[in-house]
């Protein structure tokens, strides 16, 4: 139960002595990843600003190496903060020992103590705090009840399945009733079915315990389903912060647009046209006037006509029976998913994915397409995402 303020948090990993020498010899910094390298070292997280409200569920999401785990570890106190300030409940905790921050963390690899039973694992942090035995017993049993692991309390971790181990790891974290519960990719080691199940468990858990959650994942489905707000990161920078619906509907840039949503958003090289004060996008012989809200946003920012990257989600592409004012695509692969078919096609030199239901509203099967077939695609002006040459959403 705590509010967190992260103000300009930065993490720099200094060069090792060997790297410094190599750099001096070569004369210029080497760049292995997209992370910024300066004289001080590799910048893993840059000026991370975020206010987390009490009892909020925040998800940090991004590809490997984007700095999300590093940020979490800085909040935990496992990594030193190179710059910026971290406040928990208004108290500056940059130099506070992890045990005094009143946080708990669940690790991807569970990190259970193999030589202790489930009960001992969960009681361990309480014993270290010299808590009364009866209170320890009460808390452990209560947590076990919440997580449905009461019957395994006497077992050693190796005698448990992956899902059960993760429950124990969560149990060990919640017995302390921490102010902030940190979770570092807790479901990544589980198989797909168990992951879905545990995801639902975490949502239920959240309703049962009153605490602030920070959850790190690279899985956008987890991010969308769990978070009150999502923080999308890339190369150490925050790309966008918003509710799942906000980041899905209004991605701030091409990266966010491509990262959130399955299958990925389709992108086209297009033209933004302005005629009579109205904005329209034109791509491969298809011209679509943008919706009123988008018109208003672009007008407000005085966006001129220009070459753009147009983004349209696969589920927003519609098959048209007519061939006029449509985008023509040729089918390369058709993936049958049961209730829908994902067509991978080529339109205007770019790969596109189109999701088409296998049945219409009346329950009639829709004619399917095969490799090489031509598709006529349209989309409405309200589902267009307009990105400038620098990748930023022109509406922002």
């Amino acid at each position, binding site marked *: 139960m705590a509010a967190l303020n992260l103000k300009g948090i930065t993490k720099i990993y200094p060069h090792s002595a060997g790297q410094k020498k190599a750099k001096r010899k070569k004369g210029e910094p080497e760049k292995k990843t997209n992370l910024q390298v300066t004289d001080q070292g590799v910048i893993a997280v840059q000026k991370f600003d975020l206010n987390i409200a009490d009892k909020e569920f925040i998800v940090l999401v991004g590809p490997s190496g984007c700095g999300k785990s590093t940020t979490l570890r800085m909040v*935990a106190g496992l990594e030193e903060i190179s710059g910026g300030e971290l406040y928990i409940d208004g108290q500056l905790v940059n130099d506070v020992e*992890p045990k005094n921050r009143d946080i708990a963390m669940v690790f991807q690899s569970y*990190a*259970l103590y193999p030589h202790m039973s489930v009960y001992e694992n969960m009681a361990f*942090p309480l014993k270290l705090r010299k808590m009364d035995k009866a209170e320890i017993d009460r808390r452990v049993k209560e947590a076990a009840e919440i997580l449905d692991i009461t019957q395994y309390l006497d077992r050693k971790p190796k005698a448990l399945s992956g899902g059960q181990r993760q429950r124990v790891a969560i149990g060990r974290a919640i017995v302390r009733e921490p102010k902030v519960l940190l979770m570092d990719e807790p479901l990544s080691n589980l198989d797909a079915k168990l992951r879905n199940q545990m995801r639902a468990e975490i949502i239920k858990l959240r309703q049962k315990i009153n605490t602030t959650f920070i959850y790190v994942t690279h899985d956008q489905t987890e991010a969308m389903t769990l978070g009150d707000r999502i923080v999308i990161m890339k190369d150490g920078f925050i790309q966008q912060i918003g509710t799942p619906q906000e980041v899905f509907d209004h991605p701030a840039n091409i990266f966010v647009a491509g990262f959130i949503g399955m299958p990925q958003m389709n992108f086209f090289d297009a033209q933004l046209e302005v005629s009579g004060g109205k904005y329209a996008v034109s791509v491969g012989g298809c011209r679509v006037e943008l919706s009123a809200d988008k018109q208003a946003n672009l007008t407000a920012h005085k966006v001129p006509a220009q070459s753009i990257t147009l983004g349209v989600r696969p589920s927003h592409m519609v098959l048209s029976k007519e061939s006029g004012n449509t985008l023509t695509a040729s089918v390369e692969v058709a993936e049958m998913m049961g209730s829908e078919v994902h067509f991978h096609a080529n339109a205007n030199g770019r790969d596109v994915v189109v999701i088409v239901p296998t049945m219409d509203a009346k329950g009639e099967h829709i004619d399917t397409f095969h490799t090489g077939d031509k598709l006529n695609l349209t989309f409405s002006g309200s589902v267009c995402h307009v990105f400038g040459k620098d990748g930023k959403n022109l509406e922002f």
Partner: protein
Amino acid sequence: MNKRSLEASRKRMTVYTYIALILGALIMVFPFVWMILTSLKTVPESMKVPPTIFPQEMIVTNFGDAMKSLPFLKLYLNTGLMIFFRVICAVAFSSMAGYAFAMLEFRGKKLLFGVVLVQMSLPSQIFIIPQYQMVAKMGLANSIFALVFPGIVSAFGVFFLRQTYMGIPKEIGEAAYLDGCTQWQTFYKVMFPLTGTSVAALTIFTAVFAYSDLMWPLVVNSDLNMMTLSSGLATLRGQFTTNFPVLMAGSLLAMLPMVILYLIFQRQFIEGIASTGGK
């Protein structure tokens, strides 16, 4: 190849394997059998050419003679104490150093670990003179401490346990740290108990090495009452003549505790030696 011939060839292979193993076992066991048989022979018979395998006249007085010529109880005690303290020191210091090398970041870590590796790769004999001088200058020659001295720190133990600690996921230590452990608590409450198998292996390895160590005890303790079994037995060898039956009887007596220990802890012995790659 049909099923029957496949089965026959597998059986043949098994037979060959067993023949090889039996031959190996005979070669290994022969010195022990020879020792037992010699300890029951008379002195002239033990030196007879061509040698006899079974004693013509079985005598057991050699055991009494061996016990009279050496203070066996003292030797057992000295050896036991030496093994006990060497094992305690090796386990305690190697665990702490191994943990530090594997889990902690500190200045000069690589250099210090390099020193450990160098010490491990040099034969222990080259340290005998400086070590003797140190013990002698402390005025502690002819003592249990002198016997334990070179085994206080084990470079092999440090290296071996470092590898073990490196195999433990770092997250376990981090979880302990977040749970509220100090560095010391993380070590002894969480990490050390996870190295049980390796510590058992190191214990066995150190004990066997200490038991069979001859050169150092012989150099540092010249008083027969402060000798170990191995160095005590060495005094039974004369410069010109050696009473082999008595020497063998003494060796047999010296071997007994180790044989008994082996029979009790056979499984741990084998696992330990297998995991250290010691033999």
